[in-house]
């Protein structure tokens, strides 16, 4: 136990003072001063914190009348202008505010060299004809790289990373068949506004026999070896029971409604290519005719800028031309 009497003594060997505590009769400890370098470093941190406090600034001083010290703790960017409900990014006056991450982001989006380069390339590609993009190595490299990023973020979840789609759910983008039109303007509209595909279910309006016949006819259009008699009566149903209204009497589809071309051997809904026998193929087509199709692609105009959509169209066109 320590001795409660405080007798500060001097150590005879080193001359250093002791703390005055004594344990076990003779055990004492030196009261050495803190190392000088450590002590000054400690004082330096205190001084630093006071300087930081003033400059940051969390103490209102004459330095920082508006809440910041111009250039040191402020950040500037252009506000957006909003006229008649239409927003022009960075179209407004320059504002200077105390440094913060939101202002920093706005500043970076307007000044960061990489961001400016990205913007310039997006604008450049958006203004080019598709044929010119393919010819210009810089632009096509940009479309392949940047378009892949956008496609991966927004499109791949349904159309898959390679654009091959999922049969029965999401259309293939790399074949030549386009439900809603494959022209640049068509694809652009599809991305911007989204699409709602709707084929009514026919299980209530047609008998099983009629659906079988129609399925045989549809398969015969793609050159499948189906029963000719069933296909012939199927053609009658196709033309009189409403199928031709959307798919057209020639069965080549109608892009205004997203109605598929049934003569091109491409199956986006029915699992025909996977089916091995004719019976299985008929069954696959029957499923589609019976249940109809309800598909929806979201509209992207609120998430992607017009120019970005154009880059995306160029990417999809490059994908499908490969």
């Amino acid at each position, binding site marked *: 136990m320590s001795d409660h009497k405080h007798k500060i003594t001097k150590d005879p060997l080193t001359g250093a003072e002791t703390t005055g505590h004594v344990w076990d009769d003779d055990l004492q400890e030196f009261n050495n001063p803190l190392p000088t370098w450590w002590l000054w470093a400690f004082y330096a941190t205190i001084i630093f914190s006071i300087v930081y406090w003033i400059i940051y600034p969390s103490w209102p001083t004459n330095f920082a009348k508006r809440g910041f010290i111009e250039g040191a703790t402020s950040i500037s960017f252009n506000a957006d202008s*909003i006229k008649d409900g239409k927003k022009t990014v960075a179209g407004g006056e320059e504002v200077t505010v105390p440094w*913060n991450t939101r202002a920093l982001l706005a500043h970076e989006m307007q000044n960061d060299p990489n961001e400016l380069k990205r913007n310039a390339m997006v604008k450049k590609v958006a203004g080019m004809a598709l044929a010119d993009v393919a010819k210009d190595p810089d632009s096509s490299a940009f479309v392949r790289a940047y378009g892949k990023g956008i496609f991966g*973020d927004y499109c791949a979840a349904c159309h898959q990373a390679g654009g091959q789609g999922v049969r029965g759910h999401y259309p293939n983008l790399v074949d030549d068949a386009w439900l809603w039109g494959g022209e640049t303007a068509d694809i652009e509209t599809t991305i911007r506004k989204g699409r709602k595909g709707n084929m009514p279910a026919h299980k209530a309006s047609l008998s099983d026999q009629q659906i079988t016949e129609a399925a045989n006819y549809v398969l015969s259009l793609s050159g499948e070896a189906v029963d000719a008699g069933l296909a012939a009566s199927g053609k009658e149903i196709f033309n009189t029971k409403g199928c031709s209204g959307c798919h057209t009497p020639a069965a080549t589809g109608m892009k205004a409604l997203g109605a598929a071309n049934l003569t091109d051997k491409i199956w986006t809904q029915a699992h025909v290519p996977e089916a091995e026998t004719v019976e299985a193929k008929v069954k696959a087509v029957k499923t589609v005719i019976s249940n109809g199709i309800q598909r929806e692609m979201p509209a992207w105009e609120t998430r992607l800028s017009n120019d970005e959509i154009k880059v995306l169209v160029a990417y999809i066109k490059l994908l499908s031309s490969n």
Partner: protein
Amino acid sequence: MLKHESIETNAALLIVMTLAAISIGGLVEIVPLHFIEGTVEDVRITDGPNKGKQAVRPYTPLEQLGRDIYQREGCYTCHSQMIRPFRDEALRYGHYSLAAESQYDHPFQWGSMRRGPDLARVGGKYSSAWHTKHLTQPTSVVPESIMPNYPWLSETPLDVVGLADKMSTLKMVGVPYSHTKIEFDANVEKFGEDVAKKLDINMAEKNLEAQAKLGNFDGNPDKLSEMDALVAYLQILGTMIDFSKHDEAEFVKFR
């Protein structure tokens, strides 16, 4: 000069000075909060019939139950709902999250772990049919996904027992669901009449069924399943504010 010894040997003085030292930390954090005008952005609808009303509203009963399922299944362990104000996040996910957007979340779902992508703006990004397919078996649409399957969501009927009590509880912690005529009128003033109707606790179950029927989120119009609620919740995330109508500078003021 005050020697340490005199402090350390005087218990009362030691306590007083210890309290003084540690209270500095607390004061530095708490005092500034009393001098700033607000941390939650005041975001109004800029056009349409509800012009001038609050853009962010509490969840409808269906969305709220969907949110409960989101929590029950532990979605937050892999998905954050917090887009930070960085350039890479802005390019990938969209506008950074505002405090206003999670003001009616109890508890908020900001999270810090992103094994999967951030979901703060997932609303409207995919069709409801996609969500149903994806939640049932994620690899059916995203082959490289490591997300588990949640096949029971479409099969399990949505449990609406205690819905009104749930909403009343949320009301106690500040979510403006309405019980009385006065509260309803306050909501009409704040959010507009169409929204106020959705927040009426007395109409909760009716509203829930109507929204599920209209939205048909799980693709099965005959069944009110947990999938309906969860997809309804996912589809509203991050969609309440139309950022194409707001000036960036107005959000910067709140920092």
